[in-house]
């Protein structure tokens, strides 16, 4: 990625969607790989060299990473993936209110000429101006909905439960929020099982209808003068024969006939009613696409196919994916694992060919491991890593933070793991520049050098939230209870907390609950220290609290 954030100002006439994608080094026919080098540029955002990845957000934030840290210390993250379902919950008391995010003012906020206009989505989520936003209807991976989709809506999962999102509402939200890239709604099952052919056909038919509708509506709403949104049409996770009619329409109706000549056609390709890219829920369709519809080939391909390891990422790059939305990074950080892979892999320490095979390297280390000597290891998480966590901190600190369940542990792991992922893609691009043969060799070396899976993290994770997981019947609880019953007066507190709601402006702090049992219990149960909303009695004891007017009520907030 070219990190300096400078790009040529787009000519006014071409600013309709203001996105360009340039294939710098196309895949060579019959080469061992269809991997290609490219450059994705969006006006006022940092240019993204591809292959690359975008970070997944939860409720508009990269988990554990504040916007200042995202801009400063994850500066190689060129884009973020957001889900509309993270913003449209309907609290019981306010069922009728429009989603607050849709009321984000844009005119009140002065747009500095240097940064360009800030879209409402950027404003609401305080996303750094240099970062590209991708908006889709559902999180990645999405929680499967118990009720299916209809001909004009999908089921989405918000923090207040499942609800229906119509294609119309979604398109309206996209028009209002103006993400840089939007993925029109697709009819997906969000299940691991391959849909039946009947279901697959309907998926394609519905998605086809919805995309038609999408362009019609965007066209109407974009008549005003604000910049449009780059549309990345969904490619479904079903076989090519099931969706070829839909894909053919994309090729025939929404892509200019001759987009291969970038220089001349730039103004044309960026026309707002045109397809700007493809969002692939399955990368295996790419070879068929290339054969059947060559005019889709110059479009950037965003993989939403959730590759679970870097090995899967490499496989999809070889199929021709340009940009990934990568859920595994956040998941690995939450598991307390620090990634340790590089591309290409380090040369084997022993070049003696008589030694049969070098040891297989792990993809990451479990930073919670009590046996790995991490507690006193003041070395970086990964030797030679340039990330913020490795530059400023060391293994012993991250290990301590995880053991103490301090939230900073996950923040530092996010900085590191995103840094490793960025470096991995930079390595991929460098190898691709060196030529397909060199790239193929590096891929082979990577596959041989590293274990197939991430190590399991043994540490306790951050509290799981309803919008991340829908619990099934009879499923065990995901979060350790913050309180146990010890008997005594604190049981009342627990009951009060379960009923929730200390409301009102000024809150009283719990002051260490001198002499009561729950404080003593909670120092044993460390799970509590990091839960955002849990009563943090460890800290309560950390110093005398300031409360002086008597009541020492344990309190929680939810």
């Amino acid at each position, binding site marked *: 990625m070219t990190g300096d954030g400078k790009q040529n100002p787009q000519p006014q006439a071409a600013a309709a969607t203001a996105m360009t994608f340039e294939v710098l080094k196309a895949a060579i026919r019959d080469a061992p790989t269809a991997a290609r080098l490219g450059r994705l540029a969006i006006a006022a955002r940092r240019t993204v060299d591809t292959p690359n990845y975008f970070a997944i957000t939860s409720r508009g934030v990269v988990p554990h990473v504040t916007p200042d840290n995202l801009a400063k210390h994850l500066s190689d993250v060129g884009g973020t993936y957001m889900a509309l379902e993270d913003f449209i919950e309907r609290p019981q008391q306010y069922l009728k209110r429009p989603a607050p995010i849709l009321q984000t003012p844009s005119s009140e906020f002065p747009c500095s000429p240097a940064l360009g206009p800030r879209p409402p989505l950027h404003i*609401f989520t305080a996303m750094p101006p240099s970062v590209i936003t991708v908006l889709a209807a559902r999180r990645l991976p999405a929680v499967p909905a118990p009720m299916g989709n209809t001909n004009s809506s999908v089921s989405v999962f918000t923090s207040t439960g499942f609800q229906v999102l119509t294609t119309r509402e979604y398109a309206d939200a996209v028009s209002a929020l103006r993400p840089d890239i939007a993925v029109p709604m697709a009819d997906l099952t969000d299940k691991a099982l391959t849909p039946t052919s009947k279901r697959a056909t309907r998926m394609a038919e519905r998605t086809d209808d919805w995309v038609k509708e999408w362009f019609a509506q965007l066209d109407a709403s974009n008549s005003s003068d604000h910049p449009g949104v780059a549309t990345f049409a969904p490619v479904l996770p079903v076989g090519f024969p099931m969706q070829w009619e839909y894909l053919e329409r994309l090729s025939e109706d929404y892509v200019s006939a001759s987009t291969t000549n970038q220089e001349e056609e730039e103004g044309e390709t960026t026309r707002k009613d045109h397809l700007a890219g493809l969002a692939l829920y399955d990368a295996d369709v790419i070879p068929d696409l290339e054969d059947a519809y060559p005019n889709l080939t110059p479009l950037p391909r965003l993989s939403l196919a959730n590759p679970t390891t870097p090995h899967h990422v490499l496989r999809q790059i070889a199929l021709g994916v340009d940009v990934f939305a990568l859920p595994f990074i956040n998941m690995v950080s939450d598991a307390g694992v620090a990634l340790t892979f590089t591309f290409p892999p380090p040369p084997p320490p022993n070049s003696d060919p008589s030694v049969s095979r070098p040891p297989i390297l792990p993809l990451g280390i479990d930073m919670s491991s009590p046996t790995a000597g991490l507690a006193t290891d003041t070395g970086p998480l990964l030797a030679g890593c340039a990330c913020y966590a490795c530059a400023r901190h060391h293994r012993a600190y991250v290990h301590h933070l995880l053991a103490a369940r301090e939230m900073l542990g996950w923040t530092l792991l996010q900085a590191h793991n995103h840094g490793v992922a960025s470096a991995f893609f930079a390595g991929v691009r460098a190898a691709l520049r060196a030529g397909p043969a060199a790239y193929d060799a590096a891929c082979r070396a990577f596959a041989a050098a590293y274990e197939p899976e991430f190590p399991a993290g043994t540490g306790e994770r951050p509290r799981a939230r309803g*919008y991340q997981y829908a619990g099934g019947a009879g499923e065990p609880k995901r979060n350790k209870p913050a309180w146990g019953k010890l008997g005594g007066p604190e049981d009342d507190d627990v009951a009060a907390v379960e009923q929730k709601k200390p409301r009102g402006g000024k809150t009283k702090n719990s002051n260490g609950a001198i*002499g009561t049992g729950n404080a003593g219990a909670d120092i044993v149960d460390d799970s509590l220290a990091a839960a955002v909303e849990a009563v943090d009695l460890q800290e309560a004891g950390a*110093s005398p609290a300031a409360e002086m007017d008597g009541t020492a009520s344990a309190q929680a907030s939810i």
Partner: protein
Amino acid sequence: MWAARRMASTMSASSAALTFELVAKCSTTRARASILTLPHGPVNLPIFMPVATQASLKGITPEQLENTRCRLCLNNTYHLGLKPGQEVMDAVGGAHKLQGWDHNILTDSGGFQMVSLLKLATITEEGVRFLSPHDGTPMLLTPEHSISLQNSIGSDIIMQLDDVLVTTSPDIVRMREAMERSVRWLDRCIAAHKHPDRQNLFCIIQGGLDLDMRRECCREMVARDTPGIAIGGLSGGEAKDDFCRVVAACTEQLPDLKPRYVMGIGYPEDLVVSVALGADMFDCVWPTRTARFGNAITRNGVLNLKREMYATDFGPLEDDCGCPCCRPVEQEGAMGITRAFVHHNAAKETVAAHLLTIHNVWYQLNLMREARDAIIADRYPAFVREFFSRLYPDGHGFPSWAIDALRGVGIDLLET
């Protein structure tokens, strides 16, 4: 004004690892502005010190803490003694190295946690006996052990182990025993302290709410000439009137050229009043904990951002706030966070807690900066009146404890 100018000629005192320089004194109240130079650099007093209990300020990076202009924060000996433990602390080379913090650290003695967190702590002349929270085995925290732990931690200011008792305890005999024992334990702490050249041991004045006992304790403690002096045992549920009386009684007795630390104080009103009573240093977990509950501290009071009214409030957390969250995104290092965004993520994503933590710490530190500027300009009484009039904009409802305490040092809040 005359008094302030006289102070400008600067009076200072040094001990082995600390210099205290009195820059200005308020001509009306007992408020003081000073510079405390510690092994990891100077800090301006009065100061609020945020609490990084387990070597981490609740989710924000040391760099973000630095960006709030914090140069002195707390760690807790008790917690660091358990995790990562003294051995690790020695191997890593102390708390500064562990957390990547090149500025000052203050550690408490661990005594407070013994009584606040542990059910079965018993205090004897030898030390505090308690059951290990890990495996339930009996353990003993002595003054010597506490100092040894703090020596390993390497904090710039270390606290003596004291015999902490709830201030509201009616048992006057036990209260006297605790006070006298704290003095004896100070002697043991001084004897056990291995690094007086780079770590400053502060004594802690005890004596409950009994002013005579407090004064007696002051005399004993001052005689031992520690580099700084803390007023302890407060903020344990006593009435604020009593709290103010104790602070006033102590500061009256304390030497000018030593920093005065009132432990466990954190509400903005308490800080402003305590400064008027002559205290210099404060710490409390409230600003950071309340942040995790979704509360933002502002000049106009505490806002609970989880309330529905903030769902579509697209203004900054506080107007004209200089913190990295509130300043508009166009400015260097600023984020342009709105109340609506924090509402959206409060109690759902840790980032909301981090943002409020940054804002609240900034607010507390900035409040003390403004207080200091006011003291130096010798307009602290006006500052105090302005502060309270913002919190109580309709001009009445001032807390009576604050009216009384401030009247005692020459400020009439009710004066129009």
